[in-house]
């Protein structure tokens, strides 16, 4: 791996190797937990922790894992980390864990994790692997937060639960404004995600199909 210098490993997932907009992985959870900013951020942190540490652990173990049960071992490590994260959330940020409900458990099936383990951690030393995992988690989280920002602002008129659109604008109080109920539904998240991919590709010409 010649492109293995630290900075590049860290920056790729934010641009030309973004797991959501370029590799189109982890879309399911990006639709489900982006109605409000707070759960989106907790989800982003959770995924970052899991990708970072699963990459680190698998990279430490990479020379001992029997090839025939490679995927199973990876899954076991991911599952263990996800259950740990879920238990910690339940114990310390109960309200948020209630909002995320099953989606924390579903991090296990997030393709970003298996993808990074197979593509990176199995062939690289622990430190770069850890950096790669953290960066991919953050690249995923970045998209999540952008989508959640748009959806919470337009769908509920709030950010982090605080009212942003003035109350007096609302039709109920004699104004002209209504929250866009469509934004709250998952299909609209998919459309917003599509727009982000569009913007990303028009800025970064390398990503365009010839």
């Amino acid at each position, binding site marked *: 791996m010649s492109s293995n210098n630290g900075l590049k490993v860290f920056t790729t997932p934010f641009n030309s190797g973004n797991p959501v907009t370029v590799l189109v992985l982890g879309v399911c959870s990006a639709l489900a937990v982006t109605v409000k900013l707070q759960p989106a951020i907790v989800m982003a942190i959770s995924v970052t922790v899991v990708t970072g540490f699963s990459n680190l652990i698998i990279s430490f173990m990479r020379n001992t894992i029997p090839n025939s*049960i490679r995927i199973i071992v990876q899954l076991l490590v991911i599952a263990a980390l996800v259950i740990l994260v879920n238990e910690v959330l*339940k114990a310390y940020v109960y309200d948020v864990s209630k909002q995320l409900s099953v989606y924390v458990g579903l991090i296990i099936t997030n393709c970003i994790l298996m993808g990074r383990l197979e593509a990176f951690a199995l062939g690289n030393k622990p430190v770069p692997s850890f950096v790669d995992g953290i960066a991919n988690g953050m690249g995923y989280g970045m998209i999540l937060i952008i989508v959640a920002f748009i959806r919470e602002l337009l769908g509920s008129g709030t950010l982090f639960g605080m009212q942003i659109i003035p109350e007096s604008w609302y039709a109920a109080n004699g104004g002209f404004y209504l929250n866009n109920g469509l934004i709250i*539904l998952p299909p609209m998240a998919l459309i917003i995600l599509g727009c982000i991919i569009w913007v990303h590709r028009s800025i970064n010409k390398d990503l365009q199909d010839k």
Partner: protein
Amino acid sequence: MENSDKKKININGNTYTVIYSVVIVVVVAVLLTIASTALKPAQQRNREIEKKENILKAVGKAADAGNVNDKASYIEQEYEKYIGNNSYVIDLSGNKKDGDAFKTELKAELVKPEAERFLPVFVCKDGEQLRYVLQLHGKGLWGPIWGYIAFESDLHTVAGVVFDHEGETPGLGAEISTEPFQRQFEKKQIDNESNLPIIIQKPGGALNNHTVDGISGGTITSRGVQQMLADNLKLYKGFIDKIKSENENNSIETNNKNQEQ
């Protein structure tokens, strides 16, 4: 180099693979057990605080829960102050039974045969004022919905409600857990004549004492709430009638006393 290579264990051999998988599974299992045991008390406490908060919110207490730094101890204090040990379980005819109301879950009771069902009742004392909080459990569109309904001491006027849900659609059915929806129930009266004690109707129509506005786009969830109120209040009917007749006897007694004087 060649020597050390020969001494290495064959990591693709069957024995190695089996031992490797056994070891890693045991290690992971032990780790998760330790984590789960260590975090259980904190998780349990979170669930209890949530329940206490819901009960208090139904009677309109604990209003500052969102603004205090230490929410948990604030809720504990408020609960001690207004409810404390003033809770009991009742059977379907309204008689008090032995049991811990706080640990009784309506969801678990509803699957038991009728004779063995115990229903929790929480009594909120605010000075002279008595309010009764009853538990609710029903079905929404995608999953269970639940909550509490609080009555004034006449057990006829609603003091407040709290609803929560597992997976109703955000922005539509999920609105049942928001304040504007729940506020509507305050001061409504139970309709004894009808099968539906409180009717949740299409928004925009005229409202009376027994009706509240439903949620546009959340019709099935709204109906679920309406049905939940009907089903659960039917179960509590024994208790409600009993308290009502006790109230009447009390007022007759005081009237008699007043006349004697």
